[in-house]
């Protein structure tokens, strides 16, 4: 079953829409029942999106939801998603894929902050850039992303994979400041450059193929290693010794100045 949601033009396109109801499983029942919040007003989904449904499905795995038009301010799409597919043709708003545990989300444009926040499983693929806190956790919570696979073809913002506790995050472009900060487990791979990675990390593995600026002084050099793919030689660091750090970073090139 294909569910095509085309965003209707809005009088004030800047007001955020909270749409945690947009998950594949939900469309096994009639879409009329779904409400979204536009600012402080609850509205039927059909007020905000034109809904077209092709075919049928018996379970969530058989449902693909396609978002069209301006969805850059639509938040919480795919929250708690367990199965099925969501395909976003342009940009998507914050908290896309919160607590996602299965299924797949593909974003052709850019993703706003907190993409895949506290993700447990499933796959997210973002073809554009992801903003801050990509694959991170929630305020005060000790664990961020715990499982699943999150790939960003473009750049990612600051605090990427903060509190990473499991699963895999791959950023093809550059990251901003402090990726992998407080990281506990899981793997983070940054193909491009970034600054001050993995502060206070206690576990997990981070690989950075670009250049690191502001390398933290509290990581201990522990030899070199070859990266299988591409045969690039990387330097291995262990830390963060400011904490009881048992984490590992592989870096191609770094400087201590910011």
């Amino acid at each position, binding site marked *: 079953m294909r569910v095509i949601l085309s965003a209707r033009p809005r009088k004030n396109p800047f007001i955020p829409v909270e749409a945690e109801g947009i998950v594949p499983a939900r469309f096994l029942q009639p879409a009329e029942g779904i409400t979204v919040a536009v600012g402080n007003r609850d509205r039927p989904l059909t007020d905000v999106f034109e809904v077209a449904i092709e075919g049928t499905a018996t379970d969530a795995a058989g449902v693909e939801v396609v978002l069209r038009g301006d969805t850059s301010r639509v938040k919480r799409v795919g929250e708690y998603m367990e199965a099925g597919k969501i395909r976003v043709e342009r940009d998507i708003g914050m908290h896309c894929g919160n607590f996602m545990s299965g299924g797949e989300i593909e974003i052709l444009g850019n993703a706003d*902050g*907190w993409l895949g926040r506290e993700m447990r499983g499933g796959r997210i693929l973002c073809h554009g850039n992801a*903003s*801050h*806190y990509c694959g991170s956790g929630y305020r005060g919570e000790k664990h961020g992303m715990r499982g699943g696979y999150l790939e960003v073809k473009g750049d990612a*913002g*600051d*605090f990427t994979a903060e509190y990473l506790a499991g699963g895999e995050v791959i950023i093809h472009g550059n990251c*901003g*400041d402090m990726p992998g900060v407080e990281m506990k487990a899981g793997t983070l791979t940054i193909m491009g450059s970034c600054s001050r990675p993995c502060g206070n990390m206690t576990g997990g593995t981070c690989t950075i193929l670009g250049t690191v600026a502001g390398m933290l002084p509290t990581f201990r050099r522990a030899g070199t290693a070859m990266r299988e793919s591409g045969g690039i030689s990387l330097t291995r660091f262990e830390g963060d010794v400011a904490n009881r750090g048992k984490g590992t970073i592989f870096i191609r090139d770094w400087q201590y100045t910011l």
Partner: protein
Amino acid sequence: MRIILNTGRTIPQGNFVEYKPSPEYGAETSRAFLAPLDLMDLGIEAGDRVRVSCGSRSVVLTAAASDDVPPGTLFVPYGAHANHVVPAATHGTGMPDFKGIGVDVEPTDEPVKSVWELMEDLGGKRYDH
């Protein structure tokens, strides 16, 4: 000249914080404290004016010499003048970069704007009753 901007509280700024339309407040918040060395490099003296730019935004300030400010940095008291160039990005923290922003500084003959003029540039309307 590429330089790092820091903003911060000062006594005069605090004294007139409840009376911002006053000339004293505008005078304090439009002061750009630079290391004497940097003033020399810019070929200006204390009291001359500088244009401080960050991205598409810029503001004109009055240069002042300070031995406390390390070369390569610029200190401006909190207020509307500095905020005219501070970017709004908060990196997902809610807090803009009020300190440690890379800016360009160049000499200029343009006058320093009053706080009301700055507000009008942003779509405000002066209240001078």
